[in-house]
């Protein structure tokens, strides 16, 4: 695989990042003057990047497979001695699919936000931050070295913080933004340590150099790098143990949840591990760690999502679980990389559609998020209902919707590894069916449980058109990518693809999965559509109560990190106030006290002074005499 320089249309690849970045700069620096036309500029920049992305895809499809890695150096950034890092972009098959996902889903969400944030006085700032996010995410996927990737990594973290805490006057939103940023930071430590380790081992952090000489490093070093990258990915993708921030991040506006916490930012971790596939291929232990983290998160997300009454938090739990699936696939190695990316793309589309649909429901129900107050909305909000159902069928994996194709490939790859992992994946698929059916039943079916001042209505066209487009994507994207786009062949040159035999034929696994999904959906239907849904949440069994508390994730974080840190801070304050200040003030007090005592020797009497003079003379004479002796 040769690395080609950027020529022709590809020389414009820097525009992909520059356009939204310029949009963000203009919107944020011109201030209130751009309030009128700002949002439209925001939509325009991202849409232009989307169009450019499609054109670049067409160009790339025209190139032979070996020539599809194109590099453009924008600026020579760091050159210290042996270490040099360029501001350089790399366009290959992997980054191409990400660019399309980010820009197309991003522009749809920008258009949706025109309607959703129409009444918000700060909407210009919102679009500025959204543009900033898109620019940073594109930088992340287009970087050709880990350091530039880290810049994009940090950029999306900052944008996520700004957008979660967009309604900064709400204390809960500000706290959630801080929580997200701080937990992300813990993961970022992993990434920076990995970069340092890479520099020490390989002397460079460019992808081509690292992957080229990966086999020469010891397995221990590669395992360390792999585990550190896993830490970073867990932070950014809300995997166990750094998952606590994702549910709180729903404090942000719904378009933010759709774009950042469903489609793009949370998938950055998957991208990182997929991109570093060479490292994981040579470090068994790190790959196993990825699988373990993924399995834990799949179940955690599913169980939490089953007990939440807040529609956005339920969808967040679902996101956590689905990303767990993607992490499981990348952990499985070359048998799963391709399907992880495939599921990432389909999930990006249908989860964005689900979130935007939830936003449309909230918009119609006066921004009420409590599903216990919904019910029988299918006749009132028809377009929302239909697009939501499309996303629902996609996520639970009913053929021929898009999620079926990608998720079943992952389950099949899991079974290629072993019964346990495969069985766990199938069981989680069943739970997915349960909680998604619960959500749909509580929202659109059953009896009306509306509040007295609720007048649900369909959303305006500027919001429903993106919903329709994403609904179509949820339906057809899977088939399109698999059959027409041949995603396995497309991605194989970058991430590698292997296939191992399985005991049972493929159709058997499909059947088992569908069986579990349907059973789960029926249980959810009976519980929530047939029976009365109480308006007050019932006490529930121990699992329900634990799930409502995010499986005590916050409590664990508090006990392990927050409480000791608070204690340490208090101890330091005590130390500073008492001991350090005490020392300083004490020495001042001692000086004051001493001088107060010594002051008394100034009696004003001439004879006392004369006495001390004579005393001094006697002492000097004594010294002189003693020296002579």
């Amino acid at each position: 695989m040769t690395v080609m320089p950027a020529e022709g249309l590809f020389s414009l690849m820097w525009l992909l990042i520059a356009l939204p970045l310029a949009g963000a700069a203009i919107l944020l620096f011109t201030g209130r003057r751009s309030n009128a036309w700002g949002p439209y500029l925001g939509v325009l920049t991202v849409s232009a990047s989307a169009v450019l992305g499609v054109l670049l895809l067409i160009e790339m499809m025209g190139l032979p497979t070996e020539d599809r890695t194109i590099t453009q150096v924008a600026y020579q950034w760091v050159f210290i001695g042996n270490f040099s890092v360029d501001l350089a972009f790399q366009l290959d098959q992997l980054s191409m699919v990400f660019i399309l996902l980010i820009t197309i889903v991003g522009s749809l969400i920008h258009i949706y936000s025109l309607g959703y944030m129409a009444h918000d006085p700060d909407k210009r700032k919102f679009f500025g931050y959204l543009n900033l996010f898109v620019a940073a995410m594109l930088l992340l996927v287009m970087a050709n070295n880990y350091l530039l990737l880290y810049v994009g990594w940090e950029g999306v973290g900052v944008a996520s913080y700004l957008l979660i805490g967009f309604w900064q006057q709400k204390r809960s939103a500000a706290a959630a933004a801080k929580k997200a940023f701080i937990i992300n930071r813990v993961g970022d430590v992993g990434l920076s340590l990995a970069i340092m380790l890479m520099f020490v081992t390989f002397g460079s952090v460019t992808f081509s150099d690292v992957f080229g000489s990966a086999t020469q490093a010891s397995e221990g070093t590669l395992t360390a790098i792999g585990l550190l990258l896993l830490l970073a990915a867990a932070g950014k993708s809300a995997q166990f143990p750094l998952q606590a921030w994702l549910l709180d991040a729903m404090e942000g506006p719904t378009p933010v949840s759709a774009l950042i916490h469903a489609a793009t930012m949370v998938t950055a971790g998957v991208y990182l591990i997929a991109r570093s596939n060479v490292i994981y291929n040579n470090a068994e232990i790190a790959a196993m760690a990825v699988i373990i983290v993924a399995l834990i998160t799949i179940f955690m997300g599913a169980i939490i999502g089953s007990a939440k009454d807040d529609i956005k938090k339920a969808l967040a739990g679902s996101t956590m679980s689905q990303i767990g699936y993607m992490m499981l696939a990348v952990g499985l190695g070359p048998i799963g990389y391709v399907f992880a990316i495939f599921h990432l793309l389909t999930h990006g589309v249908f989860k964005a559609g689900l979130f935007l649909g939830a936003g449309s429901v909230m918009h119609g129900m006066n921004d009420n998020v409590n599903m216990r107050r919904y019910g029988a909305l299918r006749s009132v909000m028809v377009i929302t209902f239909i697009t939501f159902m499309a996303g629902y069928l996609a996520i639970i994996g009913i053929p021929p919707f898009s999620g079926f194709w990608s998720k079943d490939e992952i389950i099949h790859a899991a079974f290629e590894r072993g019964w346990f992992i495969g069985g766990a994946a199938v069981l989680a698929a069943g739970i997915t069916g349960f909680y998604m059916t619960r959500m749909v039943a509580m929202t659109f079916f059953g009896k009306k449980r509306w509040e007295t001042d609720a007048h649900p209505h369909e959303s305006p066209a500027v919001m429903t058109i993106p919903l329709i487009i994403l609904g179509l994507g949820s339906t057809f994207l899977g088939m399109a990518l698999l059959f027409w786009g041949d995603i396995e062949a497309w991605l194989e040159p970058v991430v590698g693809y292997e296939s191992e035999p399985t005991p049972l034929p493929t159709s058997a696994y499909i059947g088992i999965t569908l069986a579990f999904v349907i059973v789960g959906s029926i249980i959810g239907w009976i519980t929530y559509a047939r029976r009365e849904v109480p308006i007050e949440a019932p006490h529930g069994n121990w699992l329900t109560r634990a799930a409502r508390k995010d499986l005590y994730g916050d409590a664990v974080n508090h006990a392990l990190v927050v409480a000791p840190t608070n204690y340490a801070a208090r101890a330091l304050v005590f130390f500073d106030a008492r001991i350090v200040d005490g020392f300083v003030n004490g020495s001042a007090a001692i000086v004051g006290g001493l001088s107060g005592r010594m002051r008394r020797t100034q009696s004003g009497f001439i004879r006392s002074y004369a006495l001390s003079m004579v005393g001094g003379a006697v002492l000097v004479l004594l010294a002189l005499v003693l020296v002579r002796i």
Partner: protein
Amino acid sequence: MDPIYYIYLATLLFSIGAIGVLVRRNAIIVFMSVELMLNAANLVFVAFARMNGNLDGQTVAFFVMVVAAAEVVVGLAIIVQVFRTRQSASIDEPNLLKY
């Protein structure tokens, strides 16, 4: 006789003068004790002039006398002034430099 005995005598007179300065409270008697100390110093100079065989000691003693006279003039003037304002000749009287 050994001229060192003059030195011993002068030392003794000097110490007695010092004790006088420290113990007496009347300003004029303190001043007189200072004069006594100056005289003792003069005796030392003269004795050393004799011991060393040149007249430098006597010359210095002469100058000491001149300076002592000037000092007495000014000192007594001050005592008189203080006495006029405070009606007291005690040397403990001016104690405004106390803390």
